[in-house]
């Protein structure tokens, strides 16, 4: 089955407040797709909906042809979708290694734990150096590496990244984007939510621009870079 994430006509929100209105989106195997938009546009809401933490009130959400709408969050990861959430959301009292071990808690990832650990350490050698430290004591850049590494430990086919570059020094931002490109080159689909539009578009194949809960523009990354909506939203 083609591993493709498809959203059609998704309406979602919190309580009475509707955040997403009729949103559609697609991510395929091994492609980086970025989701751009100003604060409050609904980017995080979109990721939480895909991860099953938020139930949409209308629309279709399928992964590899399977309906995800009735799947509880702890089963979504079993389907091969992992989220590195906004603000990293590590387990601060657990060590780096324990955070990573938890990443591979789900049944399908457990047998590969050692192999996955090796891969994550190869991608982020810094995490190996700090493996016995509490996650709460890491620097911002290290925490971001850990958040991405923890999601990779679940051996996802689709990785959802919520603003991985936020709060990082420019040099680290480049390193994080580079590792995302490397992850995608291994055949993992990546849905990347970013404020840093140009950094994201540089590694993405396609992109969507959200504004007020609707997709206002979509297209190839090269086209989006020149699009007036992107210019208006991010350059001013």
């Amino acid at each position, binding site marked *: 089955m083609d591993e493709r994430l498809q959203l059609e006509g998704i309406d979602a929100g919190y309580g009475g407040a509707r955040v997403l209105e009729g949103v559609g989106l697609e991510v395929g195997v091994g492609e980086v797709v970025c989701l751009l938009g100003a604060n409050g546009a609904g980017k995080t809401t979109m990721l939480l909906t895909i*991860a099953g*933490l938020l139930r949409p009130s209308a629309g279709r959400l399928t992964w590899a042809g399977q309906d995800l709408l009735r799947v*509880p*969050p*702890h*089963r*979504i*990861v*079993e389907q091969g979708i*992992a*989220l590195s*959430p906004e603000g990293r*959301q*590590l*387990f*601060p*009292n*657990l060590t780096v290694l*324990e955070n990573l*071990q*938890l*990443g591979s*808690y*789900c*049944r399908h*990832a457990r047998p590969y734990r050692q192999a996955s650990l090796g891969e994550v350490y190869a991608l982020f050698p810094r995490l190996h150096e700090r493996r016995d430290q509490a996650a709460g004591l890491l620097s911002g850049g290290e925490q971001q590496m850990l958040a991405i590494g*923890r999601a990779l430990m*679940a051996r996802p086919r689709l990785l959802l990244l919520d603003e991985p570059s936020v709060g990082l020094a420019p040099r680290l931002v480049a390193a994080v984007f580079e590792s995302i490109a490397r992850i995608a080159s291994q055949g993992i689909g990546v849905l990347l939510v970013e404020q840093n539009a140009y950094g994201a578009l540089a590694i993405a194949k396609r992109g969507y621009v959200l504004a007020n809960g609707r997709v206002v523009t979509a297209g190839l990354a090269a086209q989006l870079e020149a699009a007036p909506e992107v210019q208006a939203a991010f350059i001013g």
Partner: protein
Amino acid sequence: MMPKARVKAAAWAALAVAVLAAPALGSPVLNDWNVRICSLMMVALSWNLTLNAGLISLGHSAFWGLGSYAALLAANRLGAPLPLSLLIAALAGSLAGMGLAALTGNLRGIFFAISTLAFSEILRVVGLMTPDLTGGAEGLYLTPGLRPAPAVVTFAVALGAVAAVVVCAGLALTRFNLACRAMRNNEDVSKMFGINPLVCRVQCLAVAGGMASLAGGLNLWHGGFLDPLVAFDLHVTVLSQIAPLLGGIHTLVGPVVGSVLTVFLSEGTRIGLGASGYSQLVLGVLLVVCVLAMPSGVVGLWRRVLARRARP
């Protein structure tokens, strides 16, 4: 690391042997202290287990009381000997824990705490309203002919405490422990990595409930009398929290050391100041001072001292 781990294991083993051998001395005072310390240790370890999963229980007297009554009824009505009655007590506690976890669903923090308090109070009131089963306010005695020698009961309580420590030490090495700690740190994110919080809570309260009920059942065989006020006494709930707080929460040694300290402090003030109200007052003040001076318990203080020594 290896020698240090061996020293630790040896210390635990020595402690276990001492606790298990003490009943052989046959001293009634020693037996009484042993029973108090060991039964407190079991509820303290049980409370610490629930706390480890981010669940603050104010209802440990419910498990304690349930275990006491289960053991009492199993013995009096079915003629069950001590081991069988204890098995029934532990099972009753496990089932109650699972039921409580299912009922409270995804309640967290203060909301979970209040519902556990209510659980305990409900059981107490139900106990008072069903005199045919519980003896009501008059209470019930364990059929005298069934009671083994005091040393046997003391040994059973000591064995229970050792078993509780072994269970907790074993659990600390499992995925289940990691899942509990992740849930305590961040429940939503733990879900995203495949942890089902409901299943985790049910498992956690099954173990913790069984452990606390076993302690209650053991205490019944020691005391021999039960009424709903004694069985579901809030004192148990309070002590089950004081001991881990005093020793150091989220550790294995903490509740163990804390239980010994709590009993020493409470007995010390009682003996030193007599049975007057002052002893309770002094005990309360002592506990407040201890918790203020050692926010992470005796274990935390000890670790700080070691760390200070390590860097000159």
